[in-house]
Structures are given as C-alpha cells and as structure tokens.
C-alpha cells in the first residue's frame, strides 16, 4: 500500500496538469474526464495527505465546472480536514462547502473538526471554518457550535469577528434558540466604530429585518445613528433597507427618518445609494409628499439617462410608485411609451407593465388599440407579452373596467388574428366566459365567432384552434342571434376542419348539430315560410333586447335574414351537406369525434325522409308524416334551448345529499362483477364497424381505403366551398390541386396601415392616456352576471401572517425581556415547558402591574395589530419597558410626549383583549 502511495505522490498529476490536459486532450472531453476521475478515485485513497488533498482539489475542479458528482469523497474530505497543514485544510474546507448538504451522512463527524478550528489561534483557520459553517450549518451543527461562535463575536481580531457576525445569520436561521445566547453581543457590535464590523452587523440585521421587521423596532435608535453618521455607502444602503421595513410599522419613526433620507438623496453622488433612497421612499414613505416629489425628480433623471441600467431601474421604481401615486406615471408617460420600443426586452416589459397600470375604464379602448397595433409588428415574444397583459388587465375582477362589451369582444377577435398570437387558451376562456355572463353582448359575440369560423385560413394556425373551438361553441349555443345559420353550417363543416385536433373537431360537430336543429326548428315547427321575425319574437329564451336586436338585423340586412332563406329546399341541401361532410368522420380514430358524427348523422337519417317528403308535392301525405319529424325536432330543440349559466366552483357542495344515499359506502363489491369485463382499448373503439371489417382483412388496408375516400370527398367539398367563399381564397390558376398552404391569417406585410415607429405610437397615445372626462357612453354598461364567492378574488390585501416562528419569537424575547435569557444551549430541549413554568410564576406580577402597562405611551392600535404573542411575553416586555422608561428619563429630559395618549388609553382600556401585543418602547421620542 505504501509503495504506490510514494509513486503517487511523485508522479501525481497536479490540478494544473489536469487543466492543461483537459484543454489539449485529443480523446474527447468526456473520455478524458472519466479517466481523470478514475485516477482521482485511486489517489484519494492514498495515505499521504498531500496526494489526497491534490486529488481532492482536482475533484473539486471537476465537480464545480463539469458537474461530476463528488459525494463519494465526503469522508476523504474529512480526512484531509484533520491534517495539521493549512494548505490541506483550505482544500478540504473548499471541498466540503462545495459538496456537503443537509443529508450528507458524514456531516455528524465534522462537528469536532469545526470546533477545533474555531478555537484555533490561527485567524485564517478560524475564518475557513466559519466560512464552511455558514454554508453547511444544519440544526445540530448550529446548536453544538453556538458557544464557539458566541466567543468569536467579541474576538479582538477584527478579521475573525466580522466573519463571526456574518455567520451568525445562518446559525440563527438553523437554530433559533441560539438567539438567546448571541443576540446581545450582536447588538453590541452595532455600536462598534469599525466600518467592517458595522457593515457585517448591519448586513445581518437587514436580512433579519426582511423576515420579521417588527421584532427589530426597538433597535431603531441605533440604526438611526448609523444612518446619520455613516460614511460608507455600503452601510447606508443596508440601513436604508432596514428602515424600508421598519418605517411602515411605526409612523413616528417614519417621521423622524424621512428627513435624513431626503438629505442623503440630495447629497449623494453614488447612483446605487441614490437608487436605494428612491426605492426606500417610494415603497415605505409614500405618504410624505415632499419626499415622494424629490424621489420622482430623481426617477426622472434615471429615466432620461443614457445608461440602460438606470433607465430600467427608473421604470422599476415607477412601477412601485404606480400603486399609490398614479400621477407620477402619467407625468412620465412619454418616456414610458417610448421605452416600449426600446431594444432591451426587459425595459420593454417593465414599460408595458406601467402602461397597463395606467389603464382605466375611460382609456382602456384607446390603449388597447394602440397596444394591439404595436403587438402586430413586435417580435413574437413581446407580442404575446402585450396580448397577455391586455387580456389579464381587461378581465380583472370580472371585467370591471370594460363598459362596452361589443368593443371588447371584437377586440378579442382582432387579437386572435394577430399572426404571433399564442394566447388562444386565454381568449377561448374569455369568449365563453363573456358569453355566459353578459347576455347583451351575445349578438356581437356571434358575429365575431362567425368571422373567425368562416375564414378557412385561420384553421391552419394551431395556436388559434382553442379560439376556434370557443367560436364554434358560441355559434352553436347562441345560434338564435345569427343572421344566417346556414352560413354557420357551412363554416362548421368546411373541409379544412380536418386540420383541427379531434377534441375541437368534436366541438365543431356538436355545434353543427345545434345549428342544424335550430334551422329545422325554424323551418318546420314555426310554420315554415312565415316564421321570420314573429317566430323569433315568440321564442321563449329571448329577452326583450335581443328580440329587438334580432329584429333589427333581419330588417337592416335584408339579404339573409333568419327565416327567409330557410326554405325546404335549403334544408334539403343542408342535410346533404351534413351527410357529405360527416360520413368520412364515422371512421375517425377519435372516439369523441366518431360518436358525435354518428349522433348527428343518425338524427339526419331520422329527419331526412320527412324533410324530403314535405318538400314534395303531396301536401296531405307530408302533413301526416311531418308530425313525427316535428315532434323529434321539437324534442331535440328543447333539449338544446335550455340556457347554460355560469356555475360557481363550489356549487357542487351546495347540493344536498339525498336521504338514503351513503357516499362513503365501499364499492369493493363491484370489483368482482366488473372484473370479467375487459375494457376495450381505445384502438378497438375507433374501428367499431363490423360491416366493413369483414371484407377488409387488415388494418392498414382499411386505413388506406378510408384515407382515399376522405380525400376524394374533401376535394369535392373544398371545390364547393371555394366556389361559395371565393373571397377567402387566393386567386390561383391551379384550383384543381388542393394544397393545405393558405396564406397566414394576417400577414403583417399585408397590413399597410401599420404605424412604423414609436413616435407615432407616442402621438397616438398622447391623448388617450390623459385622464379624460368621462365620455358619454351611448349605452349603459350591460349586466355582468357574477357569482358570489368565486368571483370575489382573494383580495390583494393578504392578511399579514402572524409570524410567530421560533426565530422572531426568540428575538423578541431578547429585545423585550432580556432578564429571561438562559445562556445555555442545552435549554433548547424543553423550551416549552420552561416558558410555561415561568408564565405561571409571573402571573401575579402581571395582574399587579397592569396599571403600569396602561400608562405607557404607546398607541393602542399597535396592540391590536399583532396577535402573535402569547401571554407569557407580556410580563417580559413590561419589565423591559420599566427599564427602558427609566433609561429614557435619564437620558432625555423632555419626555412629556408619552402622556399625550394617556386619556385615550384609559378610555380604551376596557376593550383590551387578552392576546396582548408587544409594546414597543418608544426610544425615538
């Protein structure tokens, strides 16, 4: 064993050799690395620590930059760690902090090594182990090493001390009870004059304050001092972060701090500090008019700066202000809108957010128009970003900003025709949602749906399929508003629907079914040719307005009104069309499509005979047979005419369970019954026709036959369709060759009227963003059906969680009642029982000294805010207060302020409820 060890150490490849070899290798990187790994695996087992550590270093390299697993070396790293040499230790610590995680099995073994190094006299060794601890600390390590870290917190070597301070953050996080031990020393370090230490401490507090600001309010005076005195920008930035968290909790603190911050903002030359000031003001001091004005001034400087970083941050700051001071955004709208065409996508998105923040019910139409135009010529990614934000803004709170739904529905139609549009799903949802919720918009909705359905080019765009499915659904559901149902039938059955995925195809067929039933119903049941307006007037599901609309449309657009063209002849044609279009689908591979096609064809079969007859000459005969057909039609029509309403998500829960039905009953018995029945696979479903199967021997033959049949039929259908809707087809000579290549729905090149540069955009929006006087809407906002619970979105004001996690609890314990600290880490085992015991013990004093608590100068509102405190903390806080009170009186002579609230406090005293809050001693006054 020792022989190879020597050889290893003499001829071992160093890290440099490895890197050089890796760069010059000829056998391929992977091969080289796996060879190197093999070597390392051998070397790392060596007894010579130098060899071992070199191997470990090489492994680190491979793991770090080529992502090879190094968990196998965990134990070897520990071995190297035990070396007395600094260079070895350094490598070992590096490897450990790189590869160890909470579930590394040898983590338990490291504690003693760390402890030894933490108490070492070599400051660099201490620093290494601190660094490592900061990375790998888990509960056990944090608990066991708390005493050492505690000692280091007051080390006289600055280098060690500042590192210990930084590490304390991790230790607290993992093991909150360590707060009891270390917190006091940490606070003492706040008063240190060394900027390095101060920077470290403030850094720790800014992280802590992020998580639970309330606990650190008592330290405000110290932070204030640092803010005023600090010469280092690094420190100032951190302190500002702390104040941004503390100020909203305590208005008096905000009063006090806002001036120094403004001073800082005026004086500083460093952009980073300036930005931090701005951000602090806009997030936490938005009530202070003058401060906000100053900040806005600075934001404007950022916005017009050449540097894209500052511009981005300026926009970002604006979006923070926007929630409270919208005027700031409108003041800067020109810059914001110009930024929409910035080369930087991040800036574009930020400015888009701002533009959307300006949207209100008065300008939504103009802004959307501008943005949709803009989306047409932007890159696909940003285009969808724009569309997505329009959709989400407009649908917010059940379309609260939309007044003119006709406009919105046509906007949806327009958006779905934008070539890059990928928001199909969202548009689909809104189409259906609006259809269900807003009755008055249905005629317009049907019109938009028609335009979408009838255009064969749209079928080629797979992103639009979802939209088309919504349009198809709308056309079936609200066919009674249509001017020409026959047109719908043609659109729904047009040949290119074969491009649709089966699920949407099924919706098309179902809608065609509904439309067909409607046509037949109008034609036969309503007394044939005399139907028309009067028929629709008697139609039960119409409400008044829609009747008017229907009547309007029939009168105004006389060419094809609801009733006139539906003659017997057109019905016959319609039935033929249905048969022609759907019979190929009977062999569809998709169950859903096949079934629905079958339904529809079955229905047509039932009706056909009578329909044909009634168109024939023998009046008497047809009348007798017609009765049956009419019955069927009426039946089916009734089934479809029941209106669908929006259903609450929780509706199911409201249905009472009928008596005698036990839902929880075990259905296990069924298994024995069902066990025998083999469920057919989906494949067998799709070829469910025995009649054809007998002469077709193999599956593939069948397929071919079907395909050819389908294509023949579709060719003739397509030719037919092309004849009727020549408008949508390209004028090409080769009409025989049917290709699937349609021009894209809207080629941006075809749209000549696009405004090409941003200046036009600015011009366009210039007027629209000005908050106008409320325009006189020609019609009132239609009723939007709302459901009680579901639509009321979880209100944005999230209830402040009472974070009584152990860390902040511990911190509060320290700050509000330092007498109770037990400076032993072993205490953690039974913290609850300990606290309880003390709680009882202090009960009596608590009652006795109630008056004291009342007399404290603290606003009672704060007491109610915080529910997270148990009773047991009350006595501590009281003690602390008494102490603080005396301190304060000694320090400051003018402390009559607290008395101001006294009378009010008294009045509210009886209302006080048991869950008391921490009363924060008022250091600042």
């Amino acid at each position, binding site marked *: 064993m*020792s*022989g190879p060890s*020597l050889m290893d*150490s*003499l001829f071992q490849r160093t*890290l*440099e050799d490895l*890197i050089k070899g890796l*760069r010059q290798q000829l056998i391929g990187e992977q091969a080289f690395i796996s060879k190197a790994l093999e070597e390392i695996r051998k070397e790392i087992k060596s007894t010579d620590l*130098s060899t071992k550590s070199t191997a470990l*270093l090489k492994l*680190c*390299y491979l*793991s*770090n*930059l080529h*992502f090879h*697993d190094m968990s196998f070396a965990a134990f070897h790293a520990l071995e190297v760690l035990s070396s007395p*040499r*600094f*260079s*070895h230790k*350094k490598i070992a610590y*590096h490897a450990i902090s790189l590869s160890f*995680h*909470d579930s590394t099995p040898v983590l338990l073994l490291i504690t003693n090594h760390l402890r030894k190094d933490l108490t070492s006299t070599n400051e*660099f060794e201490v620093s290494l182990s601190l*660094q490592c601890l900061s*990375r790998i600390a888990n509960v056990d390590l944090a608990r066991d090493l708390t005493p050492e870290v505690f000692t280091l917190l007051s080390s006289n070597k600055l280098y060690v001390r*500042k*590192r210990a301070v*930084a*590490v304390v*953050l991790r230790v607290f996080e993992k093991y909150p009870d360590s707060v009891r031990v270390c917190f006091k020393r940490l606070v003492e370090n706040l008063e240190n004059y060394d*900027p*390095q230490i101060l*920077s470290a401490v403030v*850094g*720790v507090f800014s*992280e802590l304050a*992020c998580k639970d600001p309330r606990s650190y309010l008592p330290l405000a005076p110290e932070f204030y001092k640092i803010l005023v005195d600090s010469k*280092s920008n*690094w420190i100032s*930035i951190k302190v500002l*972060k702390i104040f*941004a968290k503390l100020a909203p909790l305590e208005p008096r603190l905000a009063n006090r701090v806002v001036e120094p911050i403004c001073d800082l903002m005026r004086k500083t030359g460093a*952009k*980073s500090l300036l*930005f*931090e000031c701005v*951000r602090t003001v806009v997030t936490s001091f938005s009530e202070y008019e003058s401060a906000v004005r100053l900040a806005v001034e600075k934001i404007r400087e950022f916005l017009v700066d050449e540097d*894209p*970083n500052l511009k*981005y*941050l300026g926009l970002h700051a604006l979006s923070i202000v926007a929630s409270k001071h919208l005027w700031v955004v409108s003041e800067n709208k020109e810059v914001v809108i110009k930024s929409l065409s910035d*080369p*930087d*996508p*991040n*800036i574009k998105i930020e400015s888009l957010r701002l533009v959307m923040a300006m949207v209100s019910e008065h300008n939504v139409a103009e802004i959307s128009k501008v943005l949709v135009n803009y989306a047409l010529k932007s890159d696909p990614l940003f285009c969808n970003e724009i569309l997505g934000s329009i959709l989400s803004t407009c649908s917010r709170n059940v379309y609260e900003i939309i007044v003119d739904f006709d406009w919105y529905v046509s906007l949806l139609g327009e958006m779905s025709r934008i070539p890059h549009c990928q928001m199909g799903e969202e548009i689909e949802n809104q189409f259906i949602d609006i259809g269900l919720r807003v009755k008055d918009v249905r005629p317009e909705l049907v019109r938009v749906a028609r335009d979408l359905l009838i255009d064969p080019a749209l079928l080629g765009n797979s992103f639009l399929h979802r939209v088309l499915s919504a349009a198809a659904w709308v056309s079936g559901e609200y066919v009674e508003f249509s001017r020409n149902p026959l047109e719908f039938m043609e659109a729904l059955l047009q040949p290119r629907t074969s491009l649709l995925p089966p699920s949407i195809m099924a919706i098309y067929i179902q809608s065609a079914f509904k439309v067909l039933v409607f046509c037949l119903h109008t034609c036969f049941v309503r007394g044939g040719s005399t139907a028309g307006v009067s028929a629709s007037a008697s139609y039960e599901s119409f409400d008044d307005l829609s009747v008017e609309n229907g009547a309007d449309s029939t009168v105004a657009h006389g060419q094809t009104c609801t009733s006139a063209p539906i003659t017997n002849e057109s019905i016959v044609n319609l039935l033929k069309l249905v048969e022609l279009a759907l019979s190929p689908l009977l062999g569809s591979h998709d169950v859903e499509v096949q079934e629905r096609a079958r339904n529809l064809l079955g229905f047509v079969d039932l009706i056909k005979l009578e329909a044909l007859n009634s168109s024939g000459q023998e009046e008497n005969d047809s009348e007798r047979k017609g009765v049956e057909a009419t019955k069927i039609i009426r039946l089916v029509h009734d089934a479809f005419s029941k209106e669908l309403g929006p259903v609450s998500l929780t509706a199911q829960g409201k249905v009472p369970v009928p008596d005698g039905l036990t839902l929880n009953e075990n259905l296990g018995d069924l298994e024995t019954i069902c066990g025998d029945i083999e469920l057919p696979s989906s494949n067998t479903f799709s070829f469910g026709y025995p009649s054809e199967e007998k002469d077709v021997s193999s599956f593939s033959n069948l397929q071919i036959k079907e395909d050819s049949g389908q294509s023949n039929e579709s060719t003739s259908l397509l030719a037919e369709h092309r004849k009727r809707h020549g408008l949508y087809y390209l004028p090409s000579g080769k009409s025989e060759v049917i290709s699937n290549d349609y021009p894209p729905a809207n080629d941006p090149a075809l749209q000549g009227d696009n405004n090409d540069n941003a200046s036009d955009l600015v011009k366009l929006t210039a007027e629209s963003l000005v908050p106008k006087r409320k325009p006189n809407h020609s019609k009132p906002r239609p009723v939007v059906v709302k459901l009680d619970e579901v639509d009321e979105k979880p209100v944005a004001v999230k209830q402040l969680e009472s974070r009584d996690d152990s860390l902040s609890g511990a911190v509060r314990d320290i700050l509000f009642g330092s007498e109770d600290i037990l400076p032993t880490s072993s205490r953690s085992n039974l913290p609850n029982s300990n606290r309880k015991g003390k709680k009882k013990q202090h009960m009596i004093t608590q009652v006795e000294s109630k008056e004291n608590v009342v007399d404290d100068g603290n606003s009672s509102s704060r007491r109610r805010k915080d529910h997270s405190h148990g009773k047991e903390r009350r006595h501590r806080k009281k003690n602390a207060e008494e102490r603080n009170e005396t301190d304060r009186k000694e320090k400051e002579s003018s402390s009559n302020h607290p008395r101001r609230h006294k009378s009010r406090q008294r009045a509210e005293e009886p209302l006080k409820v048991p869950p008391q809050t921490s009363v924060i001693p008022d250091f600042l006054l």
Partner: protein
Amino acid sequence: MIHFVLLISRQGKVRLTKWYSAYSQKERTKVIRELSGLILTRGPKLCNFVEWRGLRVVYKRYASLYFCMCIDEDDNELEILEIIHHYVEVLDRYFGSVCELDLIYNFHKAYFILDELLIAGELQEPSKRTVARLVAAQDSLVETAKEQTSSITNIIAQAANV
C-alpha cells in the same frame, strides 16, 4: 443576499460557480444552463439585469467573461454591479491584469479571493488593499507548507519510512 455567483465565458463554458443557497447538483446544472441561455444571448447595450424565477440576476461582461450574481428581488442591483467590479479589480490586482486564462489555471485562487470578499452571501471586505493583504498572507502560509513537502529531504524521508 447573494444566492450564487457564476462566471461564464462567452462560449458558455463555466469558469467558476459559488453557491450561497442550497442547490442540489442537478439544480445547479439546470440553473447554469438556463442562465447562460438567458444572458449570453443578450446584446451589448442592454441593461445588466435579468429577472429570473422571481429573483434577479445581475451580470456584467469583462472581456470574454460574464460575471453573474443572483440576488433577491429587493436587493440593490447597482450595489451588486459595484461588488462585481470590486471583485474584478481585486483579481486584477492579484494576478496583474487578469485574463480568462489566469482564472482557468488558478481556479482555486479565484475562489479563495471570492471567499475573502463575500461570506454567506454578503459583502465582507470593501477594501481592496485588505483583501490583497489577506490573500497574500494565506498564500505564504500555503507556500511554506508546500516547500516543506516538496523538498528532497522530505521525499527521501518519506521513502525511507517505507
């Protein structure tokens, strides 16, 4: 706080990674792939911030290397840019006009310097001179140890022990 530091070359090669938050090996690979796709494709005159998974990545390009640091949403981006610059200056001072090759061959040294600057994801040492002094002191510690091991007598002693 800083969640991680990455150095990526223009070709997408990783030159240094340092993780201050817990990421598993798998996540690390994924993060790097995602971010290099996001950052390397950005043009030269764009801003240096990228939003990513609710965090923010601040990057800056020096010659052929991208220095990236990932921070929380409410951290100060400009401050991080300064830290990056600070690090580059320290490296420059240490290696003497640093180039990518220096970092490739002395990858561990780049780490050790970073460790002096940052600890637990916070800036630790804002003075360049101090960092240089600390790194030099540790280097000399390592060097003396190395001399001991590599001296001929040492090797002979080791061989004799066998």
